[in-house]
């Protein structure tokens, strides 16, 4: 017997009687004999709760994690504070065990959360319209590129060399099958080479995709990008970290048509890379081209404020092969987490998280340079992450740091193999940073 299957032998007999058959196997007689499995699948015997806990603890213990390690690694997944109230609220099964809110009368909880999420993303990005979320930052970039490819004439997209490599890879995959050429704008001194971009832009471009703060943590000055893109009837897609938006110029202020980003820093666990969430927000003009779910405000029969999924004429279940995207689900739980996080940190808190991350990362960089053994690579304003040059391979140094309970930064490769991108959030204490500096001094 299995705890999730309530039918008793007696129940089964009664149901079979009603169907006029004697054996459950008769219900599978429509499967051709040659395709029916004769024995059991080759899987381990079922485990009880006691056994599964033991087994899974064994696996979890083989991972280096949690307290006792300090993490200086970012590169697309960030170790920010996760407020204690998130876990109990998110585990409420009214949220967790419901489906996509197709029946608004019994889904107002989920729908209002999505609506609040959309509002907060609009506030952060400064854009007009946001959707209910996408799978993650990299796939949000790909969906934005797909939107531009559908909306604009042309056969290529320009992407900055300073984009996170995971984002580049995902965009390249989607564009290959959409027959859109991906052309990389070179970098100059850790930033997108905007002069090169202007030369590369022509009528064949559907969009320019830039990230800021970029993969190196450098905050880009994007003056003129929007005008240059629009002069060539291309979109300006800006990928920006949501925490940074609390203090840095927003996608709307830079004139972006589409703002996207990785929402994980908004209260979501790193969880070995997922589930995270992507966000996407656009100008009003592009509202009906957005992929994914959108919640809207309306009224019920009594005129009471109510929420429902809307603008569904864009979506696959209505448009089938003419849909803007095949997306059905969003990352609803992760968007709920992000919403609770933004509510809890609030107007002042998100600014403080951003400022503390900026301050703490600046402190670490200064302390490292002061050792005389580590050099700064880019002399530009940075947010949360920065690149340093070390006297030997960053990968080797990381292995030595790991022995001391420190997860080092992102080791660059090739010509840059001695360079490391270090990340400092508001969670890294002064003691942890001083310890890292000491350990590095001893190693180098």
């Amino acid at each position, binding site marked *: 017997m299995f705890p999730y299957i309530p039918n008793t032998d007696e129940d089964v007999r009664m149901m079979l009687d009603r169907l006029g058959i004697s054996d459950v196997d008769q219900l599978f007689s429509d499967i051709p004999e040659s395709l029916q499995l004769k024995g059991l699948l080759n899987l381990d*015997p079922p485990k009880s709760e006691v056994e599964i806990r033991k087994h899974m603890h064994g696996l979890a213990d083989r991972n280096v994690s949690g307290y006792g390690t300090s993490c200086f690694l970012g590169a697309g997944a960030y170790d920010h504070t996760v407020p204690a109230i998130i876990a109990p609220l998110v585990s409420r099964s009214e949220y967790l065990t419901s489906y996509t809110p197709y029946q608004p009368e019994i889904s107002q909880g989920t729908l209002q959360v999505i609506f*609040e999420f959309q509002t907060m993303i609009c506030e952060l990005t400064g854009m007009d319209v946001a959707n209910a979320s996408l799978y993650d930052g990299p796939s949000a970039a790909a969906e934005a590129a797909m939107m531009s490819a559908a909306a604009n004439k042309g056969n290529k997209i320009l992407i900055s060399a300073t984009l996170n490599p995971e984002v580049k890879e995902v965009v390249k995959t989607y564009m290959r099958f959409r027959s859109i050429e991906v052309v990389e704008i070179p970098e100059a001194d850790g930033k997108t080479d905007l002069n090169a971009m202007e030369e590369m832009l022509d009528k064949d471009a559907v969009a320019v995709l830039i990230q800021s703060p970029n993969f190196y943590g450098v905050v880009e000055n994007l003056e003129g990008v929007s005008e240059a893109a629009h002069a060539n009837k291309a979109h300006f897609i800006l990928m920006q970290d949501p925490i940074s938006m609390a203090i840095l110029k927003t996608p709307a202020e830079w004139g972006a048509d589409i703002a996207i980003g990785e929402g994980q820093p908004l209260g979501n666990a790193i969880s070995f890379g997922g589930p995270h969430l992507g966000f996407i927000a656009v100008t009003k003009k592009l509202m009906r081209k957005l992929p994914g779910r959108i919640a809207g405000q309306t009224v019920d029969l009594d005129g009471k404020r109510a929420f429902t999924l809307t603008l569904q004429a864009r979506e696959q279940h209505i448009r089938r092969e003419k849909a803007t995207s095949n997306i059905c689900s969003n990352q609803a739980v992760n968007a709920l987490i992000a919403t609770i996080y933004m509510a809890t940190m609030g107007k002042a808190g998100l600014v403080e998280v951003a400022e503390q991350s900026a301050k703490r990362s600046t402190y670490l960089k200064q302390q490292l340079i002061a050792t005389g053994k580590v050099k700064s690579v880019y002399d530009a304003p940075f947010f949360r992450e920065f690149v340093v040059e070390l006297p030997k391979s960053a990968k080797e140094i990381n292995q030595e740091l790991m022995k001391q309970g420190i997860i080092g930064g992102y080791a660059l490769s090739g010509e840059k193999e001695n360079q490391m991108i270090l990340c400092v959030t508001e969670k890294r204490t002064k003691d942890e940073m001083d310890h890292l500096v000491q350990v590095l001094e001893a190693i180098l």
Partner: protein
Amino acid sequence: MIQYEKMIFELSKEGRVGYRLPQDDFTGLEAGELFPEELKRGNKAELPEVSENQVVRHYTNLSNKNFGVDTGFYPLGSCTMKYNPKINDEIAGMSGFTCIHPLQPEESAQGAMALLYDLEEKIAEITGMDAVSLQPAAGAHGELTGMMMVKAYHEARNDSKRTKIIVPDAAHGTNPATASMCGFEIVEVPSDQTGGVDVEALKAVLNDEIAGLMLTNPSTLGLFEKNIEEIAALIHEAGGLLYYDGANLNAIMGKTRPGDMGFDIVHLNLHKTMSTPHGGGGPGAGPVGVKARIADFLPKPVIVKEEENYRFDYDRPLSIGKMKGFYGNFSVLVRAYTYILTMGAEGLKAASEMAVLNANYMQARLKEDYVLPFDTICKHEFVLDGLQGTSELDVTTLDVAKRLLDHGYHPPTIYFPLIVHNALMIEPTETESLETLDAFCDAMIEIAKEAKTSPELLKNAPTQTVIRRVDEVRAARKPVLRWSKEENHG
């Protein structure tokens, strides 16, 4: 509490906070001086200013306006709303899984990699495939991965004529949308009188331009495709690939396998078949499995086992590339892995058998009062074509669905598949008791009577919910997609 009507923004008061951060001393560093003015934001983002306990009460009250599997019966066809075991959540929440960075050195994440590797092997066994990637984030994402592999496979053989994908008319909307995203042209084939693919119509569209066929088996009608071997042979003879949409795998675990039926590529919906929570619309997980000849095209990286160690292999020249950041929705995968280990081969088989028995029992109980277009053995779900005598009645399938809300049930999927005009698609799953099935059938039968005697009960339904029917037209014509003071206070 059911009358709670606030938005989080409406609780906001200047100067209130819900957080506290560490206060280390960094004398000499002023946050305001770290960035030049031209890089700074103009006005602050108008996020709410609320206290921690206000946040808790707000989102607790909102949750009370939701209905989940833990609230009650949720027979939403095609969605497999089975019970989500709590042990899976407990395990996925262990810090040894939630606090690992995807880019930390491989030797420090061997437990996570061993788990993923083992889950791949188990999915391969359950589906009868040779290799599996866990990267896709959802079913539709798995489909997209699959269609890209179909295209890459033909391209690698320099077979550039193959520009068409065949999709049956009963298919999920994602199938044509996905194929279209990869630049394929869609060829639709009709269903025959028994609800299966019309094999003669299929033969008529086969030629050397066909890249593949997308099929759900059991179909969206809940019927097993009896001609699957012939269909597979026809597609393969024509040089195409067979794609399996795994939405309905809950009907056949341990009974038959897509790999044995001749499918070349499959995706699974772990949030359906493997009991991970749907979360109000995600996150899901949509792993793809392939036959050996397609394995080189799987997304990268691939996990490789060398003696007792695991590593990520990025050197995959034929790979379609990356589909998302990192390796997949890891904590969803942990839940699915836990589920498979707690069920084992016998448990998964029992789940499918009981899911099918429950569906057939309900079908038998409801076919007197509702139209059953295909009166035959069903698998894990079945489709009704509205009330008996619908044309003489003043009520619709939508009204039936809304009346079910008043009885405390989530309605079935309605108006899908498109080929059944008044469709009510019912999927009970194996985790419901006979008492629940009977009570739901009683309610359906009572509603059928009401439709004749007092149709206004259906047309006005629901009345027992926190809101009544919503004005969808207004939502779409005058979109209000974010909160603003003006919109809500004149």
